């Protein structure tokens, strides 16, 4: 790969440029929209949607490249590895980026169609900054920049939460902000501990050095990584740390809530990365890799940190599923009910990741993509219903001002079937794949009798979902013959289209289940293999082999840092 780069400098520059552009595009647009004195609404919408389309195109190209075995990587500013900012667009990051861009596109289109962006002047600028934070967190190649981009993402999300027509109650915003500020502090502590023990923050280098640690350094690094897992669990809304989610999502403006469904998935992405760091696969260590890639997280023979992390994550995933079911049954407010769907999707995804090895990761990714799209579509759909559109904090169903249009009922049915995992839509395929991947006889499935628990939790959550969504559908769309209410005015197509596009992901991913699962399986193979990732990062270092410090390059990177005392 380095030879090819030396021979053909210009084409080799393109992926690096594309990776950097995936950050620069939203950042530049956000800055432009902030600095421009009085852009018209049309211009703001055009810039926002155009920029997001561009981001989707970049993500698609990066994904295609990464799946062809050539993940793009760039060291910003040409600084060498332990110092510079390294961005890596491997298949997992590119897939998540594509998902983010598609979701943002639908949310922006919805905001433009329903005038949701009119009252808030900074909506489009903040939205682009949010995308910048998400793209940065996905592409960041080291832990500190993961922290920085998480801060960008959170700051933009605070702004988006507080803006807009659906001003959320101050206490909800305050809780969300303060909780995440504490989370950020813990993130920083984790980064400091990891750096103190290993002397690097680059993910690939870190994975290589962790294996050689012992004694107090190992304890420090382990504490740091587990703290990091806690913070990422907060972002992903795992069991002990999920109470903030339903209130916040229910209070957010609709397009923002649709985008927020992605933020928990960024937390899951971080956990997957953390896992590949902890068991050393991200270092691209060839002989170890093949054995590890097929081992489930729960019974991983690898590093002590990974051994500890696996059962913890699995327990958190199952607990999240149970808590999500209870919350879902208890929620009377319609928006909060939809918000409770998010932890259920997180729990199912993480159960597949934690217990299923590389096949589980592939299945979980397929499930993640379709469930995120459909849930965001459900949020958009709620905004179109007459019962919900009129109120600020959402109403309990049953007291709408008009009968919903029949088209909305059909969309709701599609979304409900997709979310609940009923056949034949994609939710069923995703859940079936996850359940199959955790079976003991599947490669990488859990060996112990644990699979029964996972099956019970996942199937139980599916039953609860069916129950609750049926009840919601009856309350919203079924009317006794005697009651006379005006039928809602016809919903214009431009309002219906974003929700339709997102919910249509269910049937689409059902029809294209074969290619889609092949793509997610390839993504999982690359993410758990770690080889391509490590090769991309080390290709960067090889470009600058004139780097002047001995013992700090990736070639000598296997040794932990020595001699910290003065």
């Amino acid at each position, binding site marked *: 790969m380095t030879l090819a780069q030396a021979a053909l400098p210009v084409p080799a520059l393109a992926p690096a440029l594309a990776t950097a552009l995936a950050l620069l595009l939203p950042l530049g647009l956000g800055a432009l929209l902030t600095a421009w004195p009085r852009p018209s609404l049309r211009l703001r919408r055009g810039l926002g949607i155009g920029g997001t389309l561009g981001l989707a195109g970049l993500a698609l190209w990066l994904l295609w490249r990464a799946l062809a075995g050539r993940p793009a990587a760039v060291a910003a500013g040409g600084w060498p590895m*332990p*110092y510079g900012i390294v961005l890596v667009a491997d298949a997992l990051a590119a897939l998540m980026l594509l998902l983010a861009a598609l979701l943002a596109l639908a949310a922006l289109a919805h905001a433009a169609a329903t005038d949701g962006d009119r009252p808030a002047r900074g909506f489009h600028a903040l939205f682009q900054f949010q995308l910048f934070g998400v793209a940065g967190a996905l592409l960041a190649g080291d832990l*500190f920049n993961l922290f*920085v981009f998480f*801060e960008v993402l959170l*700051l933009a999300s*605070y702004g988006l939460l*507080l803006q807009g027509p659906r001003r959320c*109650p*101050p*206490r909800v*915003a*305050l809780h969300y*902000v*303060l909780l995440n*500020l*504490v989370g*950020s*502090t813990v993130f*920083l*502590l984790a*980064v*400091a*501990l990891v*750096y*103190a023990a290993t*002397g690097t*923050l680059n993910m690939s280098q870190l994975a290589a050095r962790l294996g050689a640690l012992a004694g107090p350094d190992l304890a420090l690094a382990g504490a740091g990584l587990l703290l990091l897992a806690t913070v990422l669990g907060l972002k992903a809304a795992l069991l002990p740390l999920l109470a903030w989610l339903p209130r916040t999502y229910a209070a957010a403006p609709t397009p923002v809530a649709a985008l927020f469904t992605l933020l928990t998935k960024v937390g899951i992405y971080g956990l997957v990365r953390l896992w590949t760091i902890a068991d050393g696969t991200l270092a691209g260590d060839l002989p170890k890799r093949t054995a590890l890639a097929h081992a489930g997280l729960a019974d991983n023979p690898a590093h002590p940190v990974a051994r500890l992390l696996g059962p913890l994550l699995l327990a958190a995933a199952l607990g999240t599923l149970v808590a999500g079911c209870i919350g879902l049954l208890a929620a009377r407010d319609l928006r909060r009910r939809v918000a409770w769907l998010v932890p259920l999707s997180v729990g199912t995804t993480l159960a597949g990741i934690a217990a299923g090895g590389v096949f589980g990761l592939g299945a979980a990714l397929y499930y993640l993509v379709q469930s995120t799209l459909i849930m965001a579509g459900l949020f958009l759909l709620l905004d179109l219903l007459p019962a919900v559109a009129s109120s600020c*904090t959402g109403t309990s169903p049953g007291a709408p001002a008009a009968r919903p249009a029949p088209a909305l009922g059909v969309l709701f049915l599609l979304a409900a079937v997709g979310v609940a995992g009923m056949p034949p839509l994609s939710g069923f395929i995703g859940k079936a794949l996850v359940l199959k991947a955790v079976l003991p006889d599947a490669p990488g499935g859990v060996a112990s009798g644990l699979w029964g628990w996972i099956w019970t939790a996942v199937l139980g959550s599916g039953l609860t979902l069916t129950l609750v969504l049926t009840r919601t559908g009856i309350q919203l769309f079924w009317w006794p013959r005697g009651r006379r209410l005006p039928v809602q005015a016809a919903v214009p197509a431009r309002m219906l289209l974003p929700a339709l596009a997102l919910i249509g992901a269910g049937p689409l991913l059902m029809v294209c289940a074969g290619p889609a699962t092949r793509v997610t399986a390839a993504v999982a193979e690359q993410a758990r293999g770690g080889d391509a990732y490590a090769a991309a990062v080390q290709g960067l270092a090889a470009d600058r082999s004139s780097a*002047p*410090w001995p*013992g*700090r390059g990736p070639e000598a990177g296997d040794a932990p840092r020595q001699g*910290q*005392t*003065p």
Partner: protein
Amino acid sequence: MEWLVAGATGLLMGAGVYLLLAPRAFTVVLGLLLLSYGANLLVFAAGGLTVDRPPLAPTRPGTTDPLPQALVLTAIVIGLAMTAFALALVLWSARRTGVTPNADAGAAQPPADGRAPAADTGQPRP
């Protein structure tokens, strides 16, 4: 030196957590401030404590690891911005609900449906 830095970090963190658990919004922000100081100190100490040595990029014997210093600068800037934002939010929230950020949580508890609290908190509502 190590004991001093470790003690200071621990003290800041302890005080921060204590303040964080207080039922007053302003005190919570103060606690966050102390917590972020503690975290910054820990990041700074993560590169090892070396006295009177220049922080130079090629880490040879006789220089300090420069990376934690660069990290802590970034962290301080982010911490400052976040604290400013949290303060502004607390003030905004206080103005919206008509409760001073220093009031006890008992008084600051609005009813569950998000309405403004009753007038007996003694604060004028804007």
